[in-house]
């Protein structure tokens, strides 16, 4: 028994020592001697305590799929043209199929072969229906495996682009991860300007260069009558007060160049100290840009980003060297963010904010203060109540309680768990319920003593009888906490974590540590009467 006791003391001391080592760094100022010796693990604070933004974004997969179908249609048309096969009006039908017309049905054999050779991994022919002697309607659908791959790629690409943008925006410790159902979760601690962040993330950043159609009638275009091959767009003009005026403008539908050749985008200032975004293209882009500007000298070239026209300057002369600028009366911030999204690349599909939770840093601080205050007040009340109720025995219960809280904090820091406001509530709740296990044991020992058992026998009986009840009663709480963790979201998960850690710690302190106290007491061979609870 004695040797056994020594081992148990050793285990308890090690566990509580580890508890101290892990729990302390969260309380001492960094830079002090202790802070350098102890492990570098603070308790992580959740966004509801630190302040920041939590976004759930939905990637518009349907749009990504139909975009891809359109792209495949264009590719197919150009490949077919090289072999003198005329494919008309390729267009996506929903997210499943691609339809087009084939002129000269006698070429259908040849076309089928072409599709099999070039597109068999992506597309399969559903039907080819002869409409009349000149035309056949083809219907192709995405190969299922390619469809899955496409979805994965789109989500990965979106994740990468968003991560890029946020990194360049300069957020410390952002957390960006994939969720189920084509969703992405973005956590930005410490960001106050939610609007700007959401804007930055949500911009598709699809850059296009198109020529302005000067001959079109603006009046008619606004009423919905645009000449064939042209489309209506709006030129954004920033007013002095920061709002935007929209001015209708008609553009030729044909896209002369896109942002895919961009190598850099940065903010510069003109002689009036107005910020603008300077773009540089790679070699191929430079060549295309040179050709485009040469072919359209003295015409207006519209710079379109996400269907908004930012500027439409007149091309004075051929531009070589692969440089262009986007001007538009920006604020410095806007120019900065625009440069970021252009550098980070465009999103493969539009992204929708499905859920947003933003907490200001002041509310986070207030929550911490209120949480800690209620923890301290509640804790002191419990300590006093227990001593009043139990006397000396209460002191033991309180010591165990302090160990318990220490272990919870240590576990939170050691496992790198995140502390949220409900998590603090969980610790507070644990302070109240943790006494239960030791009280069950103590009550039991008290009773056995009253029945006239010897102290040693009473302690033995008390522990063995109460232990099963304690385990039974606590397992249900742990089950509830595990389920909560499994199905809960951020803050609630924090609660589940503190609740389960606290419950397990309370069983350890009550069953294992308190037994040591009793055995130590008994081993001093005091008279039986001194064991009073």
């Amino acid at each position, binding site marked *: 028994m004695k040797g056994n006791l020594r081992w148990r003391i050793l285990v308890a001391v090690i566990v509580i020592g580890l508890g101290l080592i892990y729990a302390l760094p969260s309380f001492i100022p960094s830079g002090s001697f202790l802070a350098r010796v102890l492990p570098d693990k603070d308790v992580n604070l959740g966004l509801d305590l630190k302040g920041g933004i939590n976004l759930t974004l939905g990637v518009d997969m349907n749009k990504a799929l139909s975009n891809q179908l359109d792209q495949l249609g264009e590719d197919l048309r150009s490949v077919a043209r090289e072999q003198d096969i005329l494919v008309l009006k390729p267009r996506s039908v929903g997210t499943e199929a691609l339809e087009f017309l084939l002129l000269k049905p006698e070429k259908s054999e040849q076309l089928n072969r072409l599709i099999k050779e070039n597109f068999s991994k992506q597309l399969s022919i559903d039907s080819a229906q002869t409409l009349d002697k000149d035309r056949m309607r083809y219907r192709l659908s995405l190969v299922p495996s390619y469809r899955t791959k496409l979805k994965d790629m789109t989500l990965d690409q979106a994740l990468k682009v968003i991560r890029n943008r946020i990194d360049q925006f300069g957020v410390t410790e952002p957390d960006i991860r994939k969720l189920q159902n084509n969703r992405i979760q973005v956590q930005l601690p410490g960001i106050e300007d939610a609007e700007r962040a959401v*804007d930055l993330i949500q911009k598709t950043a699809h850059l296009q260069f198109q020529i302005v159609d000067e001959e079109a009638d603006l009046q008619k275009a606004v009423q919905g009558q645009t000449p064939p091959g042209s489309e209506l767009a709006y030129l954004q003009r920033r007013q002095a007060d920061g709002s935007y005026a929209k001015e209708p403008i008609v553009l030729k539908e044909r896209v002369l160049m896109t942002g895919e050749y961009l190598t850099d985008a940065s903010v510069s200032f003109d002689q009036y100290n107005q910020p603008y975004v300077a773009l540089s293209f790679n070699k191929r882009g430079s060549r295309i840009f040179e050709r485009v500007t040469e072919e359209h000298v003295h015409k207006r070239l519209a710079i379109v980003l996400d269907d908004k026209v930012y500027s439409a300057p007149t091309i004075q002369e051929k531009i070589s060297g692969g440089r262009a600028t986007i001007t538009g009366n920006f604020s410095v911030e806007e120019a900065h963010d625009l440069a970021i999204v252009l550098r980070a690349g465009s999103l493969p599909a539009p992204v929708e904010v499905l859920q947003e939770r933003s907490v200001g840093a002041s509310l986070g601080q207030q929550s911490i203060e209120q949480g800690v205050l209620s923890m301290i007040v509640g804790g002191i009340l419990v300590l006093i109540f227990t001593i009043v109720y139990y006397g000396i025995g209460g002191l033991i219960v309180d010591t165990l309680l302090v160990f318990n809280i220490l272990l919870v904090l240590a576990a939170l820091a050691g496992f790198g768990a995140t502390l949220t406001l*409900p998590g603090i509530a969980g610790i507070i709740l644990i302070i109240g319920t943790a006494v239960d296990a030791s009280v069950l044991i103590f009550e039991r020992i008290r009773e056995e003593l009253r029945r006239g058992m010897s102290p040693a026998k009473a302690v033995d009986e008390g522990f063995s009888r109460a232990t099963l009840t304690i385990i039974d009663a606590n397992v249900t709480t742990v089950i509830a906490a595990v389920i909560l963790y499994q199905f809960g979201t951020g803050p609630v998960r924090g609660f589940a974590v503190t609740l389960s850690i606290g419950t397990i710690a309370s069983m350890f302190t009550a069953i294992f540590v308190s037994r040591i106290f009793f055995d130590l007491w008994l081993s001093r061979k005091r008279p039986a009467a001194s064991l009073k609870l």
Partner: protein
Amino acid sequence: MGLQIIKPDTRIDFLGYRKIALIVSGLILLLGLGSILVNGGLNYGIDFSGGITIQVKFQDDLDLKKVKTAVAPANLQDMRVQRFGLEGANEYLLRLSAENRDAEEVRNQVSAALEESLGTGFEIQRLEMVGPKVGSDLKNKALQALFYAVLLISIYISGRFEQKWFTAGIMAVGLVTGLYLLELLAVPLVYLIVAALLITLGLCWYLQLNYALGAVVALVHDVFITVGIFSLLNKDFDLTTIAALLTIIGYSLNDTIVVFDRIRENLRSKTSRTLKAIINTSINQTMSRTLLTSGTTMLVVLSLFILGGGVIHDFALALLIGVIVGTYSSIFVAASLLLGIGPTPEKEEEEGVGASNEPAQV
């Protein structure tokens, strides 16, 4: 030696009050249920219903009317303004639907309106937007959580707590097959939860797991009363409420298990002649512990309720109700029910680990 509030020889006739308790429980349950029916269902918070919530803190004392006037220029038609947290905190919640709205635009509109009417004496502390898709996902997850809680806890208490793992196995198989069949029929989750509860109660009855039956009835009682009171107080029902409910389930069972364990032990050592006397003795014996544990728990939950701030206020309230009701139900619901149906019949061969702890006394 501390206070002995409960003297060792205390003999309160708890079960004598069981009829009054039945009436009280029944009344509160009916009131809660009535309120849910009158309100046309639970008062879902934005977690489940979707929508936008903006929490604003004002520097000066403003009453509800003034706040409403102050945000009026934002011209957001369906916006509801409600006080938040404790009196005097000057915190208000603005709630509106998220349909066809951009949350950040709404923030700007509200901010501009408040600036126009109040200048700078306000701060937007929090904004939450839950789209309809996420809302229905969260609701589904919450229901799943409740469903699995019922499932696992039923299996656990019929096994470990009753110490009849074989019967628990039958229970588990019965539950899982029953629910699997229902799921094949594409029954909505809410009904699945109700079904899980009914199957559990039915199986407990059929298999004569009377302790488990009492415990489950008590926890259902606690959850319904908490939900009912929340509805009566017009409180929002959201994710944290679910967290509170699951905690209450754990707490309620904890309390019931302690009382039932003592009843079972006293039955084995045959300390009294009648079942009623045995149950009463057991409740009295555990009373000291019950008072201490629920006392300390109430203390901390109360301090959280009063000092914890607006965000955690309703969560603390749910826990507060749960702790009171959970303690009450172990005695007046679970133990009373046990008196009515009798304890689980004991069979020597089915006793597990507990048997070795039996005292030698006769």
